[in-house]
């Protein structure tokens, strides 16, 4: 009986396979113009992906010093985040939903969904406790034509080289340019691909960066020009401006010079908005060399300077600068990436970091060992 069932199952599967294949066959008319349209390509399946990351960090001053995002808990085996993403495309319509749980994916990178009053020990206080929607990406998009796409929702920013997800960064610690730039922009954008080598995005976004909800206005304009000057070299020229969020011009470019050697560059200039004066500018270079099929070595060299004014950055005081050099290895073991990293930052004045005894100093160094599993 079981044999019969098994054979029946196999037969049914074979019949369905044959039917599906036959349905996609075009007909022979001899004239392409009179032919029926080819059968549409089946929609891809629901894609489920994500990552988890954990790290150990030791700052040689004995306390946390470097103020860039993530990897900031001193002498601790700490957690980054669990990142879970879903994507589905049906015809020309797609959605992406990406949730994150953990310090890197909550209070360190996404907004507090309810920053108002919270109850603490039986009394109402101004909210510092974290209430998160856990959303990194939540958007829908539609391909009006194969070259023209419309997207709306809460999205990772189009600005900058580095991103929140540790699986998509080479270095585990992050740059000053990343830390001080936008993480997400909620808005509506249109992208037109003129060719494989040129595309243009323009969109309107909420008044502030990194907010699920605007503070009453949707008045940040954003644009991105993508060009491929030569094969394997891609450059993005990004621009975002709004009365509240300020104005940032950014160049993000990557050139895969050989199979083993890649060079990335990020340069940006930001002028504060919302009545603040000042801002920042900086440049970061990312050479990376694959020395074997499991090990890639890379350096991030970054120069970051702040403008004079009253706008404060996560970095040097207004009118000062910092140079950061980060040596990172990516050691691959299947889906697991082990990332040992040594970083040395040096500021223009002795007021940014503190030494072992607490005295102000102009340099800081740290070691990080991280593990990122992506699926």
């Amino acid at each position, binding site marked *: 009986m079981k044999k019969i069932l098994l054979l029946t199952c196999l037969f049914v599967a074979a019949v369905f396979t044959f039917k599906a294949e036959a349905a996609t066959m075009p007909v022979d008319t001899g004239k392409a113009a009179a032919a029926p349209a080819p059968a549409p390509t089946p929609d891809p399946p629901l894609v489920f*992906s994500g990552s988890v990351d954990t790290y150990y960090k030791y700052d040689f001053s004995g306390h946390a010093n470097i103020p860039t995002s993530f990897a900031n808990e001193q002498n601790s085996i700490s957690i980054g985040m669990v990142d879970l993403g879903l994507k589905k495309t049906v015809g020309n319509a797609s959605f992406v939903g990406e949730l994150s749980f953990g310090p890197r994916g909550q209070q360190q990178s996404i907004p507090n969904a309810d920053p108002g009053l919270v109850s603490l020990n039986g009394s109402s206080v101004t909210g510092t406790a974290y209430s998160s929607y856990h959303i990194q990406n939540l958007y829908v998009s539609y391909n009006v034509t194969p070259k023209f796409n419309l997207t709306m929702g809460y999205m990772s920013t189009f600005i900058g080289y580095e991103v929140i997800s540790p699986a998509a960064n080479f270095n585990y610690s992050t740059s000053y340019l990343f830390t001080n730039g936008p993480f997400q922009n909620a808005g509506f954008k249109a992208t037109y691909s003129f060719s494989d080598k040129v595309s243009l995005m323009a969109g309107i976004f909420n008044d502030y960066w990194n907010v699920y909800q605007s503070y009453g206005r949707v008045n940040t304009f954003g644009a991105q020009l993508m060009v491929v000057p030569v094969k394997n070299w891609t450059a993005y020229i990004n621009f975002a401006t709004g009365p509240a969020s300020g104005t940032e011009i950014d160049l993000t470019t990557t050139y895969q010079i050989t199979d083993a050697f890649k060079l990335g560059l990020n340069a940006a200039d930001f002028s504060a908005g919302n009545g603040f004066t000042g801002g920042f500018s900086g440049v970061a270079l990312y050479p990376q060399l694959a020395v074997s099929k499991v090990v890639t070595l890379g350096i991030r060299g970054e120069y970051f300077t702040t403008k004079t004014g009253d706008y404060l950055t996560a970095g040097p005081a207004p009118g000062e600068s910092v140079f950061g050099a980060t040596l990172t290895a990516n050691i691959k073991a299947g889906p697991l990436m082990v990332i040992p990293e040594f970083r040395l930052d040096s500021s223009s004045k002795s007021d940014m970091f503190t030494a072992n005894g607490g005295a102000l100093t102009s340099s800081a160094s740290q070691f990080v060992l991280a593990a990122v599993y992506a699926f």
Partner: protein
Amino acid sequence: MKRTIVAIICILLAKVTCAQQDLLSFDEHDKYIYYQVTEAPGISADTLYKRAVYFLKTAYPKLKLKNSNEKNISGEGKFETYGGVSILKKESGEIIYELNVELKEQKYRYWLTAFAFTPYVKDRYGNFVPQMGINIPLEKAESKFDKKDVDNYLNQTGTFCKQFGDRLKQFMLNPPKKEEVAKKEEVTKKVVTDKW
């Protein structure tokens, strides 16, 4: 009994998996190739050419035809590879290939070769996109990727080539007539709801 059934299924699956990779051979330049010669009794070279061009343009619209005359057709295409199983199955990369079809009276031959793999990476928006500048010939893939992954790419390449060849053969030898397609469309069942 259950064990026997499971064992048979495992053996069958293993055999199918191996078989797909075995479909590829090496050519004189030590490149992977899928090569077939097919007899087409009673069909002229001219008809075969028209059918082949029509088939490629309709069944594989993203294939870029580079050269096409009445004796041969060449082009470049790509297909996606998948990794993971069950709900974790997702695009792992894409493989580009070169296609050549040559036509003669009552037979044709074709081959797919120059397979090169580009891995996908997840971008900031949660999409899997080609990793720029990485384009590894399948013959050298083991120097860059795990053997298990390379075997998977080769299996999927073999599967793609076989499916391509089977579809091409079916169309070249027995193309569905326009009337047959029209008939099939007409047989949609209709239900009259006012009489019951």
